[in-house]
């Protein structure tokens, strides 16, 4: 199995409404930046793995509408309907097994174009759930109540992460700067589905992300400082309604699978980029990955994470992008000193059913 490096990363600006671009054009912004970062052209890419969701794009098999911008005509293209970090794992496998040399991994989503209540509602079981009209907020509210009742975390823990994410948005040029808030303001905000308030949910966004993967041989030609994918893991948990939200067996398996491939032993990574749509979930996921919640905005989510503003499908791949900047030391004002190892996390599905972890490292 060959080593796989990340040789280029790019993102569009993520904003509430990118009405200025069609979704293929939105994705092209990220691809152009990633190609430029890698120092290659689109025709150098020999395969693509894309992540998107038809219901958000508003057409079926919507990846076919980005086939030209991802350069996949007459090349292998696969698409996952999940977070883009899942596409990264898929793209990693293609190169690790020796069949491909340079791969493009992308994710895009515009949460602004469809009716979110209808789209989220269609995720529910049609016989026993959908007619009751619940949405993702209701699922999260049910879960948050169980988590807080268990005593594992308190609403103030979650609110502190929201505050940190909003502060970090000011130093992340790829997201809209959010108004700064205090913990009290987060806790006093209108409730959506108790115990959750409107700021517990990450803001809805339009955005895209692209990552370029390469074999070790290609990576050493292209870069003096490639970032290596040292390990990957993924697992899907039980259906949300059948599972206590404190049961993060899937995340644990994904993390253990990724870390077992590295030579890190029990050393704690320098940076954690963790994806969660709701703040109480971020408390859970970050802790299970080994991060300290008090480090939010430092070694935990220096980018601000999804609460700084990334759409569904894109968020996990955005976490990878930030880890790459941190490991290359080019994260600017967000730079966490001398980061050598990082864990990037992504999640997909109602009630955080599927988890993905990528272990990334700098050096030779």
């Amino acid at each position, binding site marked *: 199995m060959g080593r796989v490096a990340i040789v280029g990363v790019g993102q569009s600006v993520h904003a509430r409404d990118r009405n200025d671009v069609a979704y293929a*054009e939105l994705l092209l912004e990220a691809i152009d930046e990633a190609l430029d970062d890698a120092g290659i052209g689109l025709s150098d890419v020999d395969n693509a793995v894309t992540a998107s969701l038809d219901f958000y794009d508003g057409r079926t098999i919507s990846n076919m509408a980005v*086939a030209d911008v991802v350069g996949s005509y007459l090349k292998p293209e696969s698409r996952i309907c999940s977070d883009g970090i899942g596409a990264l794992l898929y793209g990693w496998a293609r190169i690790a097994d020796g069949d491909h040399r340079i791969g493009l991994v992308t994710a895009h989503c*515009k949460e*602004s174009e469809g009716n979110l209540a*209808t789209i989220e509602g269609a995720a529910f079981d049609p016989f026993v759930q959908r007619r009751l009209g619940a949405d993702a907020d209701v699922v999260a509210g049910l879960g948050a109540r169980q988590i807080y009742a268990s005593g594992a975390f308190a609403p103030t823990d979650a609110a502190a992460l929201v505050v940190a994410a909003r502060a970090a948005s000011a130093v992340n040029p790829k997201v809209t700067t959010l108004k700064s808030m205090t913990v009290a303001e987060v806790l006093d905000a209108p409730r959506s589905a108790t115990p959750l308030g409107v700021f517990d949910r990450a803001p809805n966004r339009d955005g895209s992300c692209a990552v370029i993967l390469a074999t070790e041989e290609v990576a050493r030609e292209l870069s003096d400082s490639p970032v290596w994918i040292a390990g990957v893991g993924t697992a899907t948990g039980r259906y949300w309604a059948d599972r206590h939200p404190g049961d993060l067996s899937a995340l644990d398996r994904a993390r253990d699978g990724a870390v077992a491939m590295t030579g890190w032993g029990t050393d704690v990574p320098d940076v954690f980029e963790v994806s969660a749509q709701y703040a109480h979930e971020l408390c859970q996921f970050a802790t299970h990955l080994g991060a300290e919640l008090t480090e939010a905005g430092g070694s935990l989510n220096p980018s601000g994470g999804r609460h700084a503003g990334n759409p569904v499908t894109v968020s996990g791949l955005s976490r990878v992008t930030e880890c790459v900047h941190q490991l290359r030391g080019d994260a600017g004002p967000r730079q966490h000193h001398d980061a050598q190892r990082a864990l990037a996390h992504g999640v997909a599905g109602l009630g955080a059913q599927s988890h993905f972890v990528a272990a990334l490292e700098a050096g030779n």
Partner: protein
Amino acid sequence: MSPTPPIDAALRLEYVADFEYSYAAGKFASRFMDALRTEARIQGTRCDVCDKVLVPPRPVCGLCSGRTVEWVDVGPSGVITGYTVVEVPFIDPMTGFERPIPYGFAFVRLDGADTNIYHFLEESRHDKISIGMRITAVFKPAPERDGTLADIIHFRAEEPAADE
């Protein structure tokens, strides 16, 4: 312990959802539609690498992964590269009304373009339609155009059919 009892009638659950979208047309489609509406012009973009002209216009040439850098006028005439005569009635999504059948539907290679668009044919004598036949776009009058492909009513034969 009792086994799952047999059912008398299999349940079906009807589900009707209104999936509303507000699609951003983006830079390329917006300019394309604006030229149709304001000037009755059809435009494409030229690939900087393979020189092909792509209609409708787009930023990347799928054929060679080159970028397009130049906007060019194409048509309004071209040739039929493929056609069918539709015999089954359905609601025309551009008008909301049933389209009288039969009618012709063609792939059109506009002059100056390297890709096809497809559209309706005016010709009602369907035995006169042929691949390679020259046709030209018929536009709605300016006040009626609204920046959609319906600004082209249909394509008609460039020359009257031979028996006229």
